[in-house]
């Protein structure tokens, strides 16, 4: 027994894609230093994972898990910060935080549980729902095109960009492990069907494929990211698209140390 799961009652729907992510994260955390791991989550079905894991956790506000995670890493660089967020969380409410965490190369790992729907609030469209998605607030189908977060991340400085699928758990475990090991901002989108509102198992099983070549040059990674438009067109590539070594924000901001206030006062006379 790894003692990683709390006896909390699990309330995800039977067959929910979140179980797959939980199993993978359990594997990844058990390979790491459990005491140094902090799991940060937003609000949505994915967020419940904070209550299920027996690890340090910060169950943040909707959309705000990423700045909380950035702050935790700023506060103590020794902590291994894994940030689980939903698509509503990271692509709708908190997309500015996602982009800026990538831009500043904060040394955290962001795992997006992308079920492409607001599930816990009972079926509304998110930024990555298919355009014509019929939800409880779009009874005639949506009118907005989805965004392509992989493309956004590759354009805004993320130093590790990958996509996995809960239906391919071995590859997903490898991707998340590499993301956690990567020194810098790791972005991992996980395709996670919602059995209640947007059951995409069949279509993902058919359309996803594991990329033969990973770690592409930036331009090629971008082209690869555009292969799937988050509607119904195109094949869906899985794997690590891009990785780059560059300084993290935590390495570059000032160190915390003793401040001599007497000296400051003397100088201000």
């Amino acid at each position, binding site marked *: 027994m790894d003692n990683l799961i709390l006896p909390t009652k699990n309330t995800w729907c039977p067959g929910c894609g979140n179980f797959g992510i939980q199993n993978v994260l359990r594997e990844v955390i058990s390979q790491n230093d459990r005491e140094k791991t902090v799991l940060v989550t937003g*609000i949505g079905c994915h967020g419940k994972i904070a209550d299920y894991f027996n690890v340090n*956790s910060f169950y943040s506000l909707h959309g705000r898990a990423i700045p*909380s995670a950035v*702050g935790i890493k700023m506060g103590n660089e020794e902590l291994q910060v894994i940030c689980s967020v939903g698509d509503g969380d990271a692509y709708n409410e908190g997309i500015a935080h996602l982009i800026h965490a990538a831009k500043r190369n904060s040394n955290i790992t962001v795992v997006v549980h992308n079920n492409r729907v607001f599930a816990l609030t009972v079926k509304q469209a998110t930024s990555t729902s298919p355009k014509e998605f019929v939800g409880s607030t779009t009874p005639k189908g949506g009118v907005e095109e989805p965004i392509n977060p992989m493309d956004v991340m590759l354009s805004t400085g993320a130093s590790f960009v990958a996509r996995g699928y809960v239906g391919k758990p071995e590859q997903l475990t490898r991707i998340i492990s590499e993301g956690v090991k990567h020194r810098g901002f790791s972005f991992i989108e996980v395709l996670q069907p919602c059995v209640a509102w947007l059951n995409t198992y069949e279509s993902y099983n058919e359309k996803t494929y594991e990329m033969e070549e990973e770690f592409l040059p930036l331009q090629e990674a971008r082209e690869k990211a555009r292969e799937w438009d988050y509607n119904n067109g195109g094949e869906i590539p899985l794997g690590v698209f891009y990785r780059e070594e560059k300084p993290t924000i935590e390495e570059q901001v000032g160190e*915390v140390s003793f401040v001599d206030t007497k000296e400051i*006062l003397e100088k201000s006379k």
Partner: protein
Amino acid sequence: MGNNLGDLQIIIGGAAGEGSKKAGLLIGKLFNSYGFRVFIHEDYESVIKGGHNFSQISVSRECKDVIEEKIDFLLALNKEAVLKHKEKLKKEGVLIYDFGAIDEDFSEEGGSVIKIPLKEIVDEAEGIPLMKNTALVSAFSKIIGMEWDRVSEVLKRELPVATEKNLEVAEVAFEKTEKIEEVEEGGGNQPLPLLSGNQAVAMGALEAGLECYYAYPMTPSTGVLQFLAKVEGVRTFQPESEIAVVNAALGSAYAGKRTMIGSSGGGFALMTEGISFSAQSEIPLCVVLSQRMGPATGVPTYQAQADLLFALNAGHGDMMRFVVAPGDADEAYYLANKALNIAWKYQMPAIILLDKELSENTYGVKKDFDLEKEEIVREEKGEDYNRYEGEDVSPLIFPGGEATVKVTGYEHDKKGVATEKAEEIKAMHEKRIRKYEKLKEELREEETVKTYKEGSTAIIFWGSTKGTVLEATKEMDVKLIQPLVVQPFPEEKIKEALRETERVVCVEANATGQMTKVLKEKGVFVDKKILKYDGRPFTVEELRKELEK
């Protein structure tokens, strides 16, 4: 004007970008080195270049944190400064202006006029145009009879960039100017640290062990970040928004770092969800709220005390905060220290309510108080640790050790796992209320209300109006009452202070009488409200007139 300079009011003004603010501070530091007490009021428009900026320096032998309507010296870097302020000159006042930049001869209008050819001076020393402010300060110091050794010493210290060139410019200006006054030592006073309210808040927090300061730029709170960014040993960070600021601060505090954040009304509004999170998750959070004229964008660089009700009620849900309202830099220093300590001791949000005047004006800091750093008792906790255990304040452990630390914005059980159970919800609310009661108990022994003098009329005020109220009522038999802590509100102490009084006047810089409303809710009734809401601080003269009505 006599030969012995005593209390002085000096205005130095120019276009934004001409460095009149820096020059004002230099003049303040010069008088400070002569042992005078100095207060500087800043007035500027929301523009980068052009517009009109001025500093008014109040020089006195005793501490007096006010400016007066009439001035002794007007130092003008451009024509607008002359036109805007010359009416304020006393009959024997002196106009000193940049002859060259202003090709008009104001000497014909009567009164003393001294023309300084700043451009000529700067050119002679081969300086750059921006050094005109150094030249003007130096010329002024000569006029009032300061000694070159003292002047050059202060300039050397205060002008770390292009020091030599600035000194050359200053020396030429000093030599070319005629001495007409005789400055004396300011009554044997020792020079004081000169700090703005923003800087004093930063200092007080540093003495409470501040480790991280996060903020998004917003006038008039930006000075805190600018100041701390230059302090070695503090981690400063400017994220993408105030929402990111507050959530990052919660993260850093969870990780164990004493963190403070700051903004003005609009940015503070964005932070409120995070403030509520602090209350629920019991993560210490200390917020500087520097008020400016609202609503919405309002008048960004001008004064108001109109976020009192907002600060007292910020955050959704049944939640409590600690809110302080300092009235000068010393109180800002002391109360910021207190607020950060209380936030950590009681694991709750604390708000330091400043206003534009307090934030940006410069004060001599006496620091006649003792400061503490609340030590967090680090109990060794093992696997069985529960973040929310206990009756009121829970043991605070940071992640990274054997204990698993779970925090959440959901209502939760003692482990930190979300709950919807009726008895657990109720119990957690009561736990947080008990914490607040404990805080109230502690504050009973503290000076949460200051009173000054006695009289049958009581004047209640808060924040930066303090200096003006003290000065305006100098000759009046009135009782002055200043709440320093505004949540938990010290109504008992205020009622006690009012016991012998017959009439209550409340003075504040807002349009609706927010403190009056708070007092009314607590059963204290105000007979007369004196309000000011034109973005400018009260002057002594106008407040006196209002009080005499």
